[in-house]
């Protein structure tokens, strides 16, 4: 888009608990198409980090290649960002996380970046339970190369070119579930009331948190015949339940009629409150979650909301038993055995 965002902000713009205004969480002006779903997701990330009082510079945003992977430029300008190579965001994030476990890692990818070229890396970062937020901005097409179908394009769905996809689509939530992700969610870029609490929960989740966000491509895949267009998605959403994120020690309460809601407590004391819908199921059951996705899909609907949640597994650092202190802070004195060990070491080699 070619317009200039004014730098002026209202002097009494409200600040969060660490004294930062929303401006501290914004990034450069987006160059994506006007109306792109991805920009809404960027806005939801900005709002989530603001609300959670995160220090922007303690976040690392890492992406692959594609329209989605451009977005880290458009949020959290005070955070380091890394636009790596196509499909390889997971390994770069893994390395970064190994070096410093204290930062928050937000990985942004697309459906091409994750479900095709990066499928292997996606599978293995889930398997390692890396402590990160993994957001797929899923528009069912390759936007930057002008609209080819991606592997998440539903069979029969047609993009602007009008040719229905002949192949079965890949459901990344099902895949993440099957590979053992601790938190699996799906949302819609057009539903910030659902997306923001999910992003907050993902940030607080102490392990791998996956959010597949259906995010229409207004230029190439927003046709009536596309199952990733605004119209279709709005008409076919089926949420697991209305969702609210309640920070730890918060005064906020939400009143749902008795018996219609339930709390999911997160490890830091914050809570997710879900308003149950008719088809309630056990969110900590992989089998139930898998069944529910399938059941909704059979009705040609898209299951959104928190689909699965289980905090029990250790993250990568826990699994490989690294020290609590970030590895990139360890000094030469700590790391280098020094000449003192060499007499016995050399002797053992004679």
């Amino acid at each position, binding site marked *: 888009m070619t317009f200039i965002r004014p730098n002026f902000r209202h002097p009494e713009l409200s600040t969060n608990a660490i004294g930062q205004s929303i401006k501290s969480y914004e990034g450069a002006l987006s160059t994506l198409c006007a109306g792109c779903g991805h920009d809404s997701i960027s806005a939801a990330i900005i709002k989530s980090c603001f609300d959670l009082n995160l220090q922007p510079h303690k976040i690392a945003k890492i992406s692959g290649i594609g329209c989605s992977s451009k977005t880290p430029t458009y949020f959290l300008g005070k955070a380091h960002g890394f636009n790596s190579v196509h499909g390889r965001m997971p390994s770069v994030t893994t390395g970064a996380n190994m070096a410093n476990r204290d930062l928050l890692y937000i990985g942004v990818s697309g459906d091409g970046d994750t479900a095709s070229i990066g499928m292997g890396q996606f599978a*293995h970062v889930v398997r390692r339970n890396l402590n990160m937020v993994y957001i797929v901005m899923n528009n069912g097409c390759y936007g930057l190369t002008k609209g080819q179908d991606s592997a998440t394009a539903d069979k029969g769905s047609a993009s602007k070119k009008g040719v229905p996809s002949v192949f079965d689509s890949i459901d990344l939530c099902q895949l993440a579930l099957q590979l053992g992700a601790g938190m699996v969610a799906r949302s819609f870029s057009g539903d910030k009331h659902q997306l923001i609490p999910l992003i907050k929960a993902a940030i607080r989740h102490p392990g791998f948190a996956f959010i597949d966000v259906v995010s229409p491509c207004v230029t190439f895949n927003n046709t009536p015949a596309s199952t990733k267009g605004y119209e279709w998605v709005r008409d076919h959403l089926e949420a697991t339940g209305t969702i609210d994120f309640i920070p730890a020690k918060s005064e906020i309460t939400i009143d749902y009629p008795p018996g219609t809601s339930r709390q999911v407590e997160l490890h830091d004391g914050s809570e997710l409150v879900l308003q149950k819908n008719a088809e309630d199921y056990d969110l900590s059951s992989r089998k139930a979650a898998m069944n529910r996705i399938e059941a909704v899909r059979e009705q040609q609907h898209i299951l959104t909301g928190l689909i699965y949640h289980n905090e029990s597994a250790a993250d990568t650092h826990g699994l490989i038993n690294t020290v609590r202190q970030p590895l990139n802070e360890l000094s030469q004195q700590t790391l280098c055995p020094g000449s003192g060990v060499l007499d016995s070491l050399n002797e053992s080699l004679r």
Partner: protein
Amino acid sequence: MMNNITATNDFVIRFANVNGSGSASANNLFSKAVFRLGVPVAAKNIFPSNIQGLPTWFEVRISEQGYLGRRGGYDFVVAVNGQTMVRDYQELLPGGYFFYDSSKRLPDTFTREDITLIGIPLTDICNAHYTEPRLRQIFKNIIYVGALAYLFEMDFTVFEDSIKSQFAKKAKLIEPNIKALRLGFDYAEEHHKACCGLNIHRRDLNGDQIMMEGNAAAGLGAVFAGATVAGWYPITPSTSVVEAFEKYCKAYRVDEQSGQNKFAILQAEDELAAIGIVIGASWNGARAFTATSGPGVSLMSEFLGLAYFSEIPVMLMDIQRTGPSTGMPTRTQQSDLLAAAYASHGDTKNVLLFPADPTECFAHTVIGFDLAERLQTPVILMSDLDLGMNVHQCDPINWDDDYTYDRGKVLTEEQLEHLGERWGRYLDVDGDGIPYRTIPGTHPEKGAFFTRGSSHDEYAAYTEDGTVYARGMERLLVKWDTAKTLVPKADVSGQSASVGVIYYGTSAWSADEALETLRTTHDIDAMRIKAFPFGVEVREFIEAHDTLFVIEQNRDAQMKTLLVNELSVDPNQFVEVLNIDGMPITASYLVESINRQLADVQSTVPREA
């Protein structure tokens, strides 16, 4: 009357075994005993890409003169593999000794009269003394080592001491092993008195040297260099680098109180992920590395280009094997030079280091981490299978406790706080082509930037302005010039001859030996290259000589290509001396080849007075 080969501390013995039969430890016991007798020894394991049942050879060169390269030919063969016995028999040098298991008699076709047969009924001895099949197999190997101890007049106590130290923690294995050695020794003494003209007598020539694999030394180097993150994918012959890193980390890097690790080793899903992990960790301020071989370098190429262009330190160890494609996975070669030097699409150049022995694998790994961080670029240690996987005699590992890591140009929180001018991630403020970088999380307001493999300006912003892009690419060449002054300098010997020899890496052992011979008849200078890009001394050496023999273990003379390409020197100056059979290059081949070509050169190109 045949002439038996007679030699003291100067011969080659080949062991022909079946892989997976436990022969490697017996053969190492033998070569270690030679070393412990104070006699220089070079052992090479020639093994198949297989776990069990295929032929494997172990070649030990005993050299009082200290020649540690492969000599070529063998004077004595321990032929205990039926599959290869015919070939082992035929290729034995005239006057040599054929040691075999005489439990079965030799086929009638074995009719050579120019060799000495030494039959020891290994199977019968085993069957008589051991009942368990596995023990019979293992001790059969130990029994032949015992017999060799007698035949070569080796001090038996050295073997006893080796067994005692090897099984210090499994004391009950000491006696049975010594018994097996004794069985072989006694049988040979009884039946083969004074039949072998080859001896290994005690000397004191090894000083404080050690025996180590290059890969173990590189892994240890990474520990000493402060590497904390390793991402890797198993591939022969590099796997033992990371295994050694893990072993030494467990020895030196586990927090005593918590039992937690001050290192993170991740076996990745492939080589792409392995180097992705390294890049992510280096970007985030940790020292990180990976080890691989040729196929892995091919897969890592895209990421290497990212690291080159976005200027992220990478330490990569390429333990080269025979290519192209899968090639011969368990044979050595120096054939990844071009793939590594110019890895990735677009204009790229990567720093290479060429270690020639395990001590240098250690030292170059330490230097490599410094260079990678100082230059903010990939550095590739060009080892190979011969160096990496064989146990080599070399100088001990040394460490200067006053040395501090060079972490390069990284801005601290305080430096960012007091930054006078606008900081640019890719701004060359010092004129050396190396900009300043920041680590994520350092400062709340300053120093954040967006790392990208797409074209960027001095402030890390995306640009499609060709002038800005070109300026960045030109600056990378300024950095390349800086690299030339920082990498290890070539070793140059002699300065007056018109003929020079150029070599690098594992060709050094044989090249040094060949030079001794060649210099008895010719005036020849020599240069061992240790790094790419080439320092000024490399150009000076080339310009000072009319004819340059380039010794390489690849088909296409890849080092020559690099020299011609980077220095714009006349390709006609160079004479290629190449070996590509997957076996380490030999001194005898070098002497023969260079002598022959030297005659050609001198007859066709008259020297000016």
